[in-house]
């Protein structure tokens, strides 16, 4: 019987030595004369257990992790090929509480299948959404997306169906579907995981989008910091063309749709949709003033759908299972699931896909508290442009409106945890510094404001008239918030002002709670 072993090829696993572990397992299997296959799957999302090695046994897949190269000989000696007991044995991954508690719609296949195999994708339910979409009229396809309640999961939360409808109704000699895979927010890695673990899901979502709006060409813009995702996507696009999932005659439908992969060049601002379009067109990634909206005048001046990886990857499920099965999850106006990313100083970091509505505190419990064992002091939600939350706001439910009401944003669903050693004045200074480094330079509030913000924070940190500096920063933040062209300058005040508001003791001020006593 052929022995089948899964060793993740996901970048997070590879960064923890998964390639060397795979080679060691391969050498051991070859030495034993076994008939074997090693599959480099994506990650299940239990990153503290990476590399999480799985063996196919009579009772299903049995996982072991985190496996180091030095553990391999011992695993073989203990009989791990038969799923035997070992100190690293995790058991059936799907029974692990971290996975069992999730609702995996978009990430159902990630970590399970061989991401290089279109056959494996089909065998696990892939392709049913596209097949269903091909039997529907364009109007019904738009209704399906609208009825699902899907909102843009890149951060803005704009209804996806409305965007698609706008592009479908706009006349143009050509139309485009652009996938924003420029996932630059610290604390986020869901796009990367999906592209590495289930790339055909993204291709299927883009193809459905293409035939819905009448676009024949798609672009995926991936950041250069993601070499593994770039390789996995390139390989999947080739396989999809060979399987006629892309090309001039998509699944014999007579419809054409193809995808080109574009790689970024290290500019955070290209995650902003109009800067991304400029970059694909070969220019500096400078933000465009809106209007015109990309839906009317986007890539090369043509009507363009631009959606995040997670939004497009949610689409195959919605078509395969029907919009209601997606909409039934979630709370209020935040429907469906959100792949939440637990990062930073956490014991159990990784990907947690769950319906909207869990509270921030519940999510931190799921993450197992801090890796350092010290108390949690602050949590940044939504990347470098997201607000810092103190423990007393941990009852905030994870949905778009609740976070906005609490003075924050959910962004792309990244949660970065800090313990009590964090200096929030340093983090506020870093927010300005990052904005200064990454500003595209087009608008003054962002280009100049960020630099002045760093200087002002430096004076505050040096103890130079802190009350005056705080007033200056509050004023500057107002200007940046309302005067910037895009979210980079416009949202930098979120981390800065939330840090000052919730952690005034780090900014040379008396803590309001302490002062009141």
């Amino acid at each position: 019987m052929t022995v089948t072993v899964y060793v993740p090829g996901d970048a997070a696993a590879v960064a923890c030595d998964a390639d060397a572990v795979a080679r060691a397992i391969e050498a051991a299997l070859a030495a034993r004369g076994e008939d074997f296959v090693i599959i480099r799957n994506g990650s299940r999302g239990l990153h503290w257990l990476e590399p999480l090695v799985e063996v196919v046994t009579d009772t299903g897949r049995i996982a072991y992790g985190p496996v180091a190269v030095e553990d391999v000989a011992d695993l073989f000696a203990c009989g791990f090929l038969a799923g035997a007991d070992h100190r690293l044995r995790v058991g059936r991954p799907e029974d692990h509480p971290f996975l069992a508690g999730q609702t995996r719609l978009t990430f159902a296949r990630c970590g399970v299948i061989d991401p290089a195999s279109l056959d494996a994708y089909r065998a696990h339910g892939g392709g049913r959404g596209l097949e269903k979409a091909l039997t529907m009229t364009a109007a019904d396809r738009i209704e399906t997306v609208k009825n699902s309640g899907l909102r843009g999961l890149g951060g803005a939360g704009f209804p996806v169906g409305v965007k698609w409808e706008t592009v479908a109704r706009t006349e143009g000699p050509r139309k485009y579907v652009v996938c924003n895979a420029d996932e630059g927010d610290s604390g986020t890695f869901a796009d990367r995981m999906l592209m590495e673990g289930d790339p055909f899901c993204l291709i299927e979502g883009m193809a459905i989008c293409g035939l819905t709006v009448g676009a024949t060409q798609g672009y995926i813009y991936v950041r250069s910091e993601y070499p593994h995702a770039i390789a996995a996507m390139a390989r999947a696009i080739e396989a999809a063309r060979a399987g006629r999932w892309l090309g001039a005659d998509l699944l014999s439908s007579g419809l054409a749709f193809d995808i080109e992969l574009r790689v970024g060049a290290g500019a955070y601002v290209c995650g902003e949709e109009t800067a991304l379009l400029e970059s694909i067109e070969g220019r500096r990634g400078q933000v465009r003033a809106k209007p015109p909206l990309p839906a009317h005048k986007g890539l090369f001046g043509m009507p363009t759908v631009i959606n995040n990886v997670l939004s497009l990857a949610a689409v195959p499920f919605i078509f395969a299972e029907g919009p209601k099965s997606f909409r039934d999850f979630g709370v209020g106006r935040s429907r469906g699931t959100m792949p939440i990313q637990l990062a930073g100083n956490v014991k159990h970091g990784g990907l947690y896909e769950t319906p909207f509505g869990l509270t921030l505190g519940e999510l931190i419990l799921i993450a197992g508290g801090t890796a350092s064992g010290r108390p949690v002091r602050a949590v940044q939600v939504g990347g470098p442009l997201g607000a810092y939350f103190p423990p007393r706001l941990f009852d905030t439910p994870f949905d778009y409106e609740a976070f906005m009401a609490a003075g924050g944003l959910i962004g792309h669903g990244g949660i970065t945890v800090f313990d009590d050693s964090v200096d929030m004045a340093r983090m506020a200074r870093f927010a300005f510094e990052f904005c200064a480094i990454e500003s595209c330079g087009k608008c003054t509030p962002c280009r100049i404001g960020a630099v002045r913000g760093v200087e002002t924070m430096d004076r505050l940190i040096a103890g130079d008239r802190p009350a005056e500096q705080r007033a200056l920063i509050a004023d500057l933040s107002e200007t940046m918030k309302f005067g910037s062209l895009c979210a980079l300058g416009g949202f930098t005040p979120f981390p800065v002002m939330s840090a000052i508001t919730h952690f005034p003791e780090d900014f040379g001020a008396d803590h309001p709670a302490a002062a009141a006593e």
Partner: protein
Amino acid sequence: MPAEGMTELDREKLSQLIEAHADRPGALLPILQAVQAGFGHVADTFVPVIAERLNLSRAEVHGVLTFYHDFRRQPAGRRVLKLCRAEACQAMGAVDLLAQAEHRLATAMPGTRADGAVTLEPVYCLGLCSVAPAAMLDGRLVGRLDAGRLDALIDEVLA
């Protein structure tokens, strides 16, 4: 063709790299990436050649070249060590690791060591925020970095 300072061989190679992408829509970025992959950097003498082929002004090509952090106008050191200094890595002690790297390599970040052994650069997120702090040595990803593992990386770089 204004390409002074280039050998015939370089000129030929540059032209091939440009031609491979010149007919793509929005060709400039793929061309600059290919040229950098081929030569290790995009020399100023290449700019007019690229501009002429794409019917752009030199200023436009220069503008793009200098906008993106990835592009180099000078060769890098023999190895390139990128340390992530974004928030999730900071939450796990990245700031101390940056100081350690700068000290041991006697190089301020960003910068190249005087002997050309290594270029030390910041990176803002490698998407390894759940196994932070993270680094990239040439193309190799390293997660769960601590002082000991960083020392080992630096030993490797200086060996």
